[in-house]
Every structure is written in C-alpha cells, then in structure tokens.
C-alpha cells in the first residue's frame, strides 16, 4: 500500500470522520451509504459504488448507487471484474478507451463514466469481500495521491464490511433466540393455571414444550355449555404459531362464555384465524364440549387426530378421525358438523399432540397408536395423571436420550367409574 503523502487537514478530517462513522453502524446499507459518500467527498469524485462479492454465485452485486437498483454481474465482468482477478487497484483515465470497461451499467443509469479508480476490498483475513469504484474525478483524473487515499478508505471499508456481515449473523441468531424465549413465555401464560373441578370426572393435562418452542396449546375450562376440551397445534416453531394458538384459546373461551354453540364457535374462530394466518400456516385443533349432565361430548376436530375413546365396558378403543380441515387455512364454506361421543363410567378420552412422523429428530417423541392404546388400557382405572405418567415413561424408553423436537401435549378426560354397590 502506497504511503499517504501530506494530507490537507480537511481531507484527513473527512477520512477520520468516515472512519469513526464506519466503526459505528452495524447495518450494511447504512455502512455502504457512508462509504460511498465519503469516497466522493474525499476523492472529489462524482460517483462511487461498492460491489459485494457473492462468491457462491461468482457474481458481483451492486448494493448502492443513487439511481441504479440492485445489479448483478459475473465476477469477471468489466473493470470491477478485472480488479477482482488482479486483486490490485486499477486506475483508468479514459474508460471508454479501455477494452475491459463494461458500458452496460452506464447505459442503464444514464451516467457517463470518464475515468475510474477501482480498488479491491480485502479484509483482515485476506479475503476479497468486494470492490470499490470511484468515478469521474472533478476537474481531472485520479492521481497517485487519490489512489493512496482511496486505498486507505478501501481498507476501512473492507474491515467494516466483514464486521457488519458477522454482526448481522449474530443479530439474526440473537433475534431468533429471543423470539423463542418469548414464544415459551407466551405458551406458558396461555395455559390454564388450574384444572377445573367437575364432579364425576377426573382430568389431566401434560405439557412438555420442546427445546425449540413448538406451537401446541390446550385448554380445559368450565364454560356455559359444560366443559371445554381443547388440544391445538399450530404449524411451525417460534412466536407466530405460539401467538396464533394463544389467540385461538382466547377466542374460544370468549365465544363459549357467551354461550355460542360449538359449530358456530368453530366456524367463527376458523374464519378469524384464516384472516390473519399467513399462507400455509394452519392450526390443528380438537374442540370439544362435554355436557356433564348427559355425559355427551360433542366435538369438531380440525385436522387433529386420532381421537382415542377408551370404552371401559368393551375394554376397547374407538378411534375418531378429524372431522374437518385444520383451522385457519380458509374461511369455511359451510357450517362444520360435530361428532358425538358418549362417555360411559370408566371411559377415557385421550388426546395427544401429533408426533408420529417426526423424522426430523431421532426417535423419541413419537407414538404408535397401538402402544398408546395398550398403556391406556392397562392403566385405565387409575387417575389420569398416572395414565399420563405411564405414557411418558413409555415414551422415554423410545426416546433413548434423543432430544425432543416438538411439543408433547396430552389431554386426558376420564369419567369416573361408578362406585361398586356394597
């Protein structure tokens, strides 16, 4: 790098000022704007541009230039390309006379390039991260002094560029971590603090959030129509699905508190979710309403299944499938149809979040229906909390130490066996 000859004090001030500002911003666009502005002022150039090297695609990308938007060229193109290959400054007093010069960018912008000074941006690790180019020195061509100043500026730019990119990655990772923490808090806050007391029934809910928050939710609440039973699962991980399930829970509680019928509630909540959920995001949800007087549980299930009804009398299971498409995809065209389930004494309703296909993660958190059924059948007379524990234990055997990739949510509702007559 050439030694910087005696700088005029204002040139130095300008350069130092730029250095300070380059050390501060962490947003790429802001940084590049600073650099190009500085280059123009310090070097008295009409225009400056910074091209970033996209090594994967072998292209140079023009990020900032006042009237041209995002331009991509092969990394061997033009003077900037020649600079990448040479990894050395290129000073051209008459661009149109130079065979390497690519006039297409000029044509696109309407600017006419006279002379140019192109410098490689090489960071501390000796990686070429881009190219800086200044055009049209006012009142002349770029001299050696200019080149020296430009090199100093380019060095600053390269380092700042590397730092910004690293920072952006860190910020993204940090943002994601925070988002997941927040999602976990949202999930926890939305869940019922205490399970309702309903004579003749015992219930239990287990919620084991995954390390990376999933979008599960459940609810058991006494409402106007009886007992609300909900198991929901939003697609995806993070804050958005957690919020959508929370919204759904709030809407359901509100609607049922007002005494709205099951079909209406499902319809309305589905349509509200459809308004706000982004494309391809749904919420699978089992929404049931138990009338404790008749022991009839009516339910609508948007994509949630299988719904296992253990019948104590027959010592067998009835497995119900989902009745409807998952919620939130589109407004319903017709009112949904509810299915009824008669809970006899000793019967158990088993709702489990769906993990059967989770090949993303090893083993573990997946259920085979037959295994679930055998555990429940064996423990059916025990309190649901114990049944849940047995299920989790069976799971742990399969887990084999592998981490859980999705929420495990279980909702169990048991109608107590009638006491034996003495």
């Amino acid at each position, binding site marked *: 790098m050439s030694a910087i000859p005696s700088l005029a004090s204002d040139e130095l001030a300008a350069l130092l000022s730029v250095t300070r500002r380059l050390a501060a911003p962490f947003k790429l666009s802001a940084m590049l704007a600073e650099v190009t502005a500085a280059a123009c002022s310090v070097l008295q150039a009409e225009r400056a541009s910074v091209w970033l090297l996209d090594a994967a695609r072998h292209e140079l990308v023009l990020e900032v230039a006042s009237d041209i938007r995002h331009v991509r060229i092969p990394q061997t193109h033009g003077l900037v390309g020649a600079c990448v290959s040479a990894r050395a400054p290129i000073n051209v007093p008459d661009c149109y006379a130079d065979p390497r010069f690519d006039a297409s960018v000029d044509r696109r912008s309407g600017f006419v390039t006279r002379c140019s000074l192109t410098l490689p941006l090489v960071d501390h690790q000796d990686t070429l991260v881009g190219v800086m180019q200044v055009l049209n020195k006012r009142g002349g061509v770029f001299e050696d002094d200019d080149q020296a100043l430009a090199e100093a500026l380019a060095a600053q730019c390269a380092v700042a560029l590397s730092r910004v990119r690293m920072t952006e990655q860190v910020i993204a990772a940090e943002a994601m971590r925070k988002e997941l923490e927040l999602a976990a808090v949202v999930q926890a806050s939305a869940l019922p603090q205490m399970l309702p007391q309903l004579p003749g029934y015992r219930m239990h809910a287990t919620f084991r959030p995954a390390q990376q928050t999933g979008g599960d939710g459940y609810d058991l609440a006494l409402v106007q129509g009886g007992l609300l039973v909900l198991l929901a699962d939003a697609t995806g991980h993070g804050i958005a699905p957690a919020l959508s399930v929370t919204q759904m829970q709030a809407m359901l509680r509100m609607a049922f508190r007002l005494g709205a019928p099951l079909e209406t509630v499902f319809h309305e909540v589905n349509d509200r979710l*459809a308004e706000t959920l982004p*494309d*391809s995001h749904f919420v699978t949800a089992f929404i049931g309403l138990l009338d404790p007087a008749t022991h009839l549980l009516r339910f609508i299930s*948007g*994509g949630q299944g299988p719904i296992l009804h253990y019948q104590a009398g027959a010592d067998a299971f009835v497995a119900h499938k*989902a*009745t*409807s*498409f998952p919620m939130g*995809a*589109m*407004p*319903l*065209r*017709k009112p*949904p149809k509810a299915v009824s389930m008669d809970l006899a004494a000793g019967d158990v309703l088993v709702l489990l979040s769906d993990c059967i296909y989770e090949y993303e993660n090893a083993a573990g958190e997946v259920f085979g229906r037959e295994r679930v059924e055998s555990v429940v059948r064996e423990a059916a007379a025990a309190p649901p909390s114990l049944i849940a524990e047995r299920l989790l234990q069976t799971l742990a055997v399969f887990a084999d130490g592998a981490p859980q990739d999705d929420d495990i949510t279980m909702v169990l509702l048991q109608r107590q066996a009638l006491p034996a007559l003495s």
Partner: protein
Amino acid sequence: MQMELIELDGPVNLVRLDGRLDAPGADTLGMRFTAATVAQGRPVIVDLSGVSFIASMGIRLLISCAKGAHLKGHKFVLFGAQPFVQDVFEQAGLDQILDIAASESEALERLSA
C-alpha cells in the same frame, strides 16, 4: 405436470391441469399456476379432469392459490376431479374450505353466484 390457460368471456380464466399433482408435479406447476389463478386477478375455474393423482404438496398449492384469490377478492372454483382425487378432497375436509363443483358449467355458475 402440464398446464393450459384459456381465456373465457368475462374475462374468466380457465386453467386445465394434466398429470400428477405429487411433490414434483406441484413444484413444476408452482409459479405458473399461481400467476394464472391469483396474480391476474380474474375469476378462475380449474379443470382437474386430467389430474390422476394428488398428494399433500398438490393440496397445499391449491389451498395457497385459493387463499390468494380470496384475498384478492376473486373466485377460485375447482371442477372435474376424478373419483380418487375427489375422495382425497373429502378425506382431508377440503370440501369444507374450497369451492368444488362437479362440472365446468356448474363451476361457471358458481362464479356468478
């Protein structure tokens, strides 16, 4: 997976699909189908009589476009599904959320409904 776009009086877009709407099929179709059914902002009827197979990726594409059309305010009607394809629609509960007609004439009628 082939797609044919025919402009009917209205203007209404008639999109004919031919082939398997499996994952690669849905992929191939992707942008073109979205452009024809959503981007143009015209009411659209989709002829599924040439679709011999459909799986979740294909369903996703249909829902996505139906939603897009819904948000843009124009109708999106499917018709002519072969029996097994219609069966998948019903198994998945899609008939509750998508406009599925039995024939082209019925589909056109749905547009003016």
